[in-house]
């Protein structure tokens, strides 16, 4: 185990990060043992980087026995895509890209228009089609229960029917660490090994494991504009109106997602330690501060999850 176990309080006692890591590794091995074609959803964001590290640990010294998949809206931060490719090559895993752009080009979905246009919701279609096309029967996600109130209710092994839908009122009871992995053809399970981690746990783990991150997580100067209290990057792919005047600000990203709906936060944090100090003191949740997509309604996340979203 990592450095933390040396600081653990007593004999035969693990630190909280060691307990969370052991639980996540158990979950990943359970999936590798019981499913035929798992895949790990990988965006290059901090949670998915933690997931990739856990997968490396779970099967070491063997290789990770499943590919990773990025659901690509085409509206990415270039720094993140560059980082994604480098990290995937380093891990020696195969990268599958489920492209929203290709879905639009093929006429399967329509590009949203207007001021609030975002491809965020289109990710669901690309994700489900890729799952079907590749015959994936389990998809690991890096969602955490502390992120959002609908996620707080979701199982670690979350069943999806043949349409990829989540039925929150009809979830399988989950007891001890005995997970029901049975599905019929065409159905799949979303698996969330870091369900019980908090945002702070993720950052503590990144520090402990010395994980490298895309540069946009650290403070930098960027041209941004403000919309509905969120600082969005000034980019040709966002429809800005004349009242939304861009300005230069010292910011960093607390989450990494689609560029059109992920907000930056003002920050001078240049090191992991600075970020951890900042997170420990913040009074706003990461999704509340940075995700425009959750503001559509009180049940925005639940509604998207029902349709098959992450």
């Amino acid at each position, binding site marked *: *185990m990592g450095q933390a176990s040396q*600081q*653990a309080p*007593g004999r*035969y*006692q*693990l*630190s*909280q990060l*060691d*307990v969370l*890591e*052991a*639980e996540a*590794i*158990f979950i990943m*091995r*359970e999936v590798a*043992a019981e499913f035929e074609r798992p895949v790990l959803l990988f965006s290059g964001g901090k949670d998915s980087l933690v997931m990739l590290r856990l997968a*490396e*640990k779970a*099967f*070491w*010294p*063997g*290789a990770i026995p499943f590919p990773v998949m990025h659901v690509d809206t085409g509206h990415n931060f270039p720094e993140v895509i560059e980082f994604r490719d480098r990290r995937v090559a380093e891990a020696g895993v195969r990268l599958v890209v489920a492209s929203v752009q290709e879905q639009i080009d093929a006429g399967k979905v329509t590009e949203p228009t207007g001021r609030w246009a975002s491809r965020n919701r289109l990710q669901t279609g690309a994700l489900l089609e890729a799952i079907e096309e590749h015959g994936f029967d389990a998809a690991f996600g890096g969602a955490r*229960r*502390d992120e*959002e*109130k*609908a*996620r*707080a*209710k979701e199982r670690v092994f979350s069943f999806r029917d043949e349409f990829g839908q989540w039925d*929150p*009122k009809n*979830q*399988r*009871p989950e*007891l*001890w*660490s*005995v997970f*029901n992995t*049975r*599905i*019929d053809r065409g159905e799949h399970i979303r698996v969330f090994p870091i*369900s*019980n981690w908090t945002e*702070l746990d993720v950052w*503590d783990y990144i520090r402990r494991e010395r994980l490298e991150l895309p540069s946009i997580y650290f403070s930098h100067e960027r041209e941004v504009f403000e919309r509905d209290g969120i600082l969005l990057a000034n980019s040709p792919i966002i429809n800005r109106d004349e009242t939304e005047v861009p300005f230069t600000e010292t910011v960093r990203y607390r989450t990494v997602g689609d560029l059109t709906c992920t907000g930056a936060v003002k920050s001078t944090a240049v090191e992991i330690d600075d970020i951890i100090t900042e997170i420990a003191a*913040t*009074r*706003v*949740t990461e999704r*509340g*501060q940075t995700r425009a997509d959750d503001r559509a309604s*009180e*049940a925005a996340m*639940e509604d998207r999850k029902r349709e098959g979203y992450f």
Partner: protein
Amino acid sequence: MSNDILRFATAGSVDDGKSTLIGRLLFDSKSIFEDQLDAVERTSVARGEEQTNLALLTDGLRAEREQGITIDVAYRYFATPNRTFIIADTPGHIQYTRNMVTGASTSDLAIILVDARKGLQEQSRRHAFLTTLLQVPHLVLAINKMDLVDYSQERFDEIKAEFTDFASKLDTRDLTFVPISALHGDNVVSRSENMPWYTGPSLLHHLENVHIASDRNLIDARFPVQYVIRPHKSADPELHDYRGYAGQLAGGVLKPGDEVTHLPSGLNTRIARIVTADGDVAEAYSPMSVTLLLEDDIDISRGDMICRPHNAPEVTQDLEAMVCWMTDARKLTPRSKLLLKHTTRSAKVMVRDLRYRLDVNTLHRDERAEHLELNEIGRVRLRSTQPLFVDEYTKNRQTGGFILIDESTNATVGAGMVVRTD
């Protein structure tokens, strides 16, 4: 970070002040964020409620908010400088017994809320029974709304005596009583000046300090084999014959050099190395996820068990277990055929008979019962198609607990706790 984690379940209905208590623990530990509170306040105002309804923080599903009830287990997280807490917030009504069983299955501690005005209710007894059935090691009876009984010591003592009497029939290992007012914060985070007669710790102080390290079984070594790691890297001769058995310890301590027994073969060998990605370790204990390398080449696969030669679980095809039935789609009846999953092993089982159904409110045993319905609990005998490696649930929650799956729907339909083997 040298924190450890305490997982606890809260039981009680909204009327008992459960949501208020959780809200206060989260609020006073600064775990409620401004945007979450804003959202709850907006919704409370929109519904015309007089006070901010903290239950909205935990009731995350649309249906729950619409109906004003908790349907499912919600998990909440908070931390103090001493400990990290995972709360399994479980609904209180009898129709959600299965949810409470689910929440309790992983908990180190359970808080049962009692309204000081009403005293022990049928549901308080049921919650206490389920907590002990699931072998939650620590139980706290939080006697709430003390402000509404003038902070009366007499009332507190009365409820305490009544519960102590009831608990003597149960297998409770550690029982603590705390008089609180969740609404006003008395004895929740800090000791209350309104109850000078109470000399015990505040609820949070108890949660921060209750000793849980010895709750794990560190005597009986149990290693269910989960996954076999065989890296095929022809370039690396060291890995050529590598055969590692990956899994999470379910009990005991294992060290390199230890003599171990493999089940079902009964063959003995020694542990050569205990491997993790961060290097070999000198000992492994629960809940570590490790990989064992053994000295001898034995045919071992997922679902097998590694233990110590003179301390093995029962190897049996016949189980007697307390089963909580979790579906309304079918009943548990004698001759029901189901799939059982226990540690990393799955096997088909048949229900031989239902010994009795337990009334979870009165603990009365109905030996004439012919089936179990949703949320009912009974003692059941099962016959498995292949050997299982089990311990009594009271000895080890991991190797004594199992789930039952309906093979036609793939639903999880029951949870079982091994009582004895024969």
